């Protein structure tokens, strides 16, 4: 109690030293890692084993700390205020004689648990210190400086079977023998084909029709085929115009080319 009074002088004349000390602690609140840490620090003023700690006294100290912080207009984090509320509740429970009819844990149980938490936190701190104080790799003892770690010798073996070989050969031979003829024809629409197609359609085109509508089915989407078919159809159209079987017109550059048959020829 005396200790806490020294820390948080609430009344009476205060020495400059005391005030500085008090402020130092309060300002240091940022240095606390939460209310439990603060409680642990406060508990040290009791100078007793944490198992014998007076939780009542601790609660009182904590609450006066919070009061003091308020006076000094220090904004306390919500955590600290929640803890303050809880400790105020605990304090009142500890003051009152145990009421057996009341629900929930007794003040003693709550106090015991808080003491347990403080002791556990302190134990973890001690262990952390012991751990960090151990002989450590790279500081006290050392690993091999020049590790000759495993050389990974990766041997890659390549395999191929007879089928691969024959297929490979077949692929080349097939390409040589046939592909140039077959493949190239695939997307080539010849003028002969276009002419033949258009002669067949000639009778049905009395009005101006876009030349592109003469393109055979399946030659519209693929750009390569479309180009070939368009060229062939255009060439065929010119041929038919030349023969006097058709008329051709284009309103301006890049405008659609239109075709129709020549009625005179229809007689």
């Amino acid at each position, binding site marked *: 109690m005396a200790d806490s009074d020294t820390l948080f002088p609430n009344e009476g004349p205060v020495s400059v030293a005391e005030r500085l000390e008090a402020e130092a602690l309060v300002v240091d609140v940022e240095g606390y890692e939460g209310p439990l*840490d603060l409680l642990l620090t406060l508990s040290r003023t009791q100078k007793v084993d944490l198992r014998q700690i007076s939780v009542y006294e601790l609660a009182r100290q904590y609450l006066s700390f919070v009061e003091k912080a308020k006076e000094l207009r220090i904004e306390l984090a919500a955590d600290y205020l929640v803890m303050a509320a809880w400790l105020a509740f605990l304090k009142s429970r500890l003051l009152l004689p145990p009421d057996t009819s009341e629900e929930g844990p007794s003040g003693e149980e709550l106090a015991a648990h808080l003491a347990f938490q403080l002791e556990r936190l302190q134990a*973890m701190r001690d262990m952390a210190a012991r751990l960090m104080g151990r*002989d450590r790799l790279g500081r006290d003892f050392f690993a091999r400086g020049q590790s000759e770690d495993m050389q990974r010798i990766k041997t890659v073996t390549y395999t191929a079977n007879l089928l691969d070989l024959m297929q490979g050969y077949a692929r080349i031979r097939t390409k040589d023998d046939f592909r140039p003829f077959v493949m190239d024809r695939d997307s080539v629409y010849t003028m002969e084909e276009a002419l033949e197609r258009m002669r067949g359609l000639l009778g049905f085109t009395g009005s101006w029709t876009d030349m592109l509508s003469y393109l055979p089915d399946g030659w519209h989407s693929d750009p390569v085929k479309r180009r070939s078919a368009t060229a062939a159809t255009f060439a065929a159209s010119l041929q038919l115009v030349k023969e006097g079987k058709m008329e051709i017109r284009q309103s301006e550059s890049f405008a659609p080319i239109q075709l129709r048959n020549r009625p005179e020829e229809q007689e």
Partner: protein
Amino acid sequence: MNDGVDYSSVAAEAKEQARDSLFDAPPMAEQERMVEAVLFASAEPVTVRDLVSRMPHGCNPVEALEYLRKRYEGRGVRVVQVGDAWAMRTAPDLGFLMQKETVETRKLSRAAIETLAIIAYHQPVTRAEIEEIRGVSVSRGTIDQLLEMEWIRLGRRKMTPGRPVTFVVTPVFLDHFGLESARDLPGLKELRAAGLLENRPPPGAMALGQGEEREDHHDEEQPELFGD
């Protein structure tokens, strides 16, 4: 550590192989030389399984390791066990000679050190449990830093609602602190005897801190990790 690598079974396997082998395994003195060379050459601890796979068929590295460890007793270099692996490390009393090699390790914050200790002593532990013990929330950066240093890693998820992830310490941690296993953590027995590693639920609903994460399996799992 809790990878479930059972090197005694590996050793048994090696013995089995030795019996069955058509070829005689090299003499034990030769096996010891081999283990010595492999441990010496690698900066990282080498597992028994790895030794078995590297050494000729029928070798028994566990036995060879025992001879080797004895041979190096009191020398400037020691043979140490790190989890289920083995390594050679200089004797700690000669650290003063090695000043030049000292690489300044990144300064760990108090929060990080405490978090590490909590993970080591309470593993596998959830973030909520760490927060309950410390009474403050654990910043993402703290966990990240420890993960990055490879001192902790994710353990199995807890079988509790939300199946939270857990953290456990790694062989790198054991190696760094010169621990054979997490069982050898200083003061572990005392802490357990004092009941400070128990997960004691707060009485009543008004829990202190953030520790709503109640854990029944925790105590069950511990013996597996620390049990002796």
